[in-house]
């Protein structure tokens, strides 16, 4: 079981309030991702849940039991750090065994759990090595192994993939998702990478300056962002924002249209512009269009290979049903 409830939780460092009063409910078995730009308080929030930082006020409950004052060791949570935080003086086996040793798990049970974790994470051949002799991906697996064997109420991940190269990151992302499918344990995952958030989460919590901007499933956030911040943060490439007359014509202060919701043509369309940069990925093509009179840049995404080059004139038509309308206060209309 791993239901975590935060009620009116705040955190201040000296006079600076980094987390204003915040309520959040994380259900048992959910994969929740905290996402936001750097400095938005997502790591602090995770550390509050972990007990590594004390809350300034408010209440944290784990499985219905008060946990606000509990030390980290007593919260039955396991954490995977960005820097892996393995014990450099212990072998992989001892690293994985450490939490069980702390919990006085019998030796044979320890051995059994190490065996099965190592097997699941492809670490069987490395059990007697020191962390210093492992690659980044292997170290991260050891950190995950150390978390699994505790059989915690919930897993906390603090930007666990940031130190890995791009290819490895995609692989580990899948492994963590699979792990969640298999264990069905609550996972809270902090990242600044919205792709990780979109691909892994059951529920995304978008944070800015300690505030929760929106909570919802990845597709909810994609389809119906509650404000300009969420609209701009979720989705890659970013949503285009257009103000002025064009927006006013739709009865809004700002309208947003995602790059993939604009049709392109060489001959006709609603908007006209000049291609400044074209990026061809094979499966998709991205065009950064200038001189539209709508915004500095309009980004368009088209499927497959479409032969616009730098300097070409391009015509664009937004899909009316995919337009997002925002008021002057930035909120969705």
């Amino acid at each position, binding site marked *: 079981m791993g239901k975590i409830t935060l009620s009116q939780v705040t955190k201040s460092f000296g006079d600076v309030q980094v987390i204003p009063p915040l309520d959040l409910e994380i259900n048992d078995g959910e994969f929740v991702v905290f996402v936001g730009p750097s400095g938005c308080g997502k790591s602090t929030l995770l550390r509050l849940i*972990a*007990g*590594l930082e004390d809350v300034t006020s408010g209440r944290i409950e784990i499985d219905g039991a008060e946990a606000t004052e509990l*030390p*980290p*060791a007593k919260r039955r*949570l*396991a*954490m995977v*750090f*960005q*820097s892996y*935080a*393995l*014990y*450099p*003086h212990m072998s992989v086996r001892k690293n994985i065994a*450490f*939490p069980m040793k*702390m*919990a006085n798990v019998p030796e044979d049970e320890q051995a059994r759990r190490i065996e099965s974790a190592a097997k699941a994470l492809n670490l069987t051949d490395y059990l007697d090595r020191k962390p210093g002799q492992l690659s980044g991906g292997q170290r991260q697996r050891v950190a995950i192994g*150390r978390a699994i064997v*505790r059989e915690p109420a919930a897993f*906390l991940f603090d930007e666990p993939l940031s130190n890995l190269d791009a290819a490895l990151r995609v692989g580990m992302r899948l492994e963590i998702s699979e792990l969640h499918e298999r264990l069905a344990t609550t996972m809270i995952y902090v990242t600044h990478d919205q792709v990780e958030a979109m691909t892994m989460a059951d529920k995304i919590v978008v944070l800015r300056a300690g505030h929760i901007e929106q909570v919802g499933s990845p597709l909810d956030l994609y389809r119906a962002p509650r404000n300009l911040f969420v609209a701009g943060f979720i989705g890659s490439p970013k949503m285009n924002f257009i103000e002025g007359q064009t927006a006013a014509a739709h009865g809004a202060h700002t309208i947003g249209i995602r790059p993939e919701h604009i049709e392109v043509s060489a001959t006709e369309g609603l908007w006209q512009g000049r291609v400044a940069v074209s990026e061809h990925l094979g499966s998709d093509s991205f065009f950064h269009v200038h001189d539209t009179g709508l915004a500095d840049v309009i980004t368009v995404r088209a499927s497959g290979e479409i032969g616009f080059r730098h300097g070409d004139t391009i015509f664009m038509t937004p899909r009316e049903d995919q337009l997002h309308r925002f008021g002057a206060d930035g909120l969705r209309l």
Partner: protein
Amino acid sequence: MARAVKTQRKALNTAIAWGVGLLIFFPILWTILTSFKTEAEAIADPPVWFNFSWTLENYFTVQERSNYFRHFWNSVVISVGSTLIGLIIAVPAAWAMAFVPGKRTKDVLMWMLSTKMLPPVGVLVPLYLIFRDLGLLDTRIGLVFVLTMINLPIIIWMLYTYFREIPSEILEAARMDGAGLREEVLHVLMPMAVPGMASTVLLNIILAWNEAFWTLNLTAAKAAPLTAFIASYSSPEGLFYAKLSAASTMAIAPILIMGWFSQKQLVRGLTFGAVK
């Protein structure tokens, strides 16, 4: 051409380094040489270097006149004892200062260091009286206590520096893994700080071993360590340079040998943090 200049420079630097090294080592060498001379040869003018009649007589005389091993054992108990007790106090103190620093941590560290600047003679009389009243004069436990207090600032400072090199995330990981404070310090922090702890221990044993002011003033016979043993040969009644040298050699030999074997660890520990 450039290479030749470089080689010449290297040779010159090497020669200078050896020169300085020998200059520093010379008094010790001279003491060791003198300890094998007769009293007459020891004060000969011009001095004799190596062509004297080598003798072990001084060593036998010294051992006969005063019990070397008893002083040696006192030195061991006092230096090791004060270092161990110092560690027991310093590890938690350094942990707190390195990982949960408060607003005044820097001030506390500076204040502790400032106690090292106090001339010890300034507190000699009060401390002597306290020791007399508590019956601690000429006891090993009394000396262990004084030397622990004297070297504590250095132990805390050194451990603090080493602990700060350890990423706090690793300690947090231990906390998440269910470790209490004691397990965190014993199973994670201390094993990771082994090089630093080793050099701290070595340096403090050396400092305590060589400490003369308090050991001379607070002991008489029973608890007197090797420093007092040497001092007993610099008596005004005669010029016993050869015997004094033999006593000195016997007193410094253990620490010199220990320092020699652990020099790698010492240098590594002392430069830890400075050159990463």
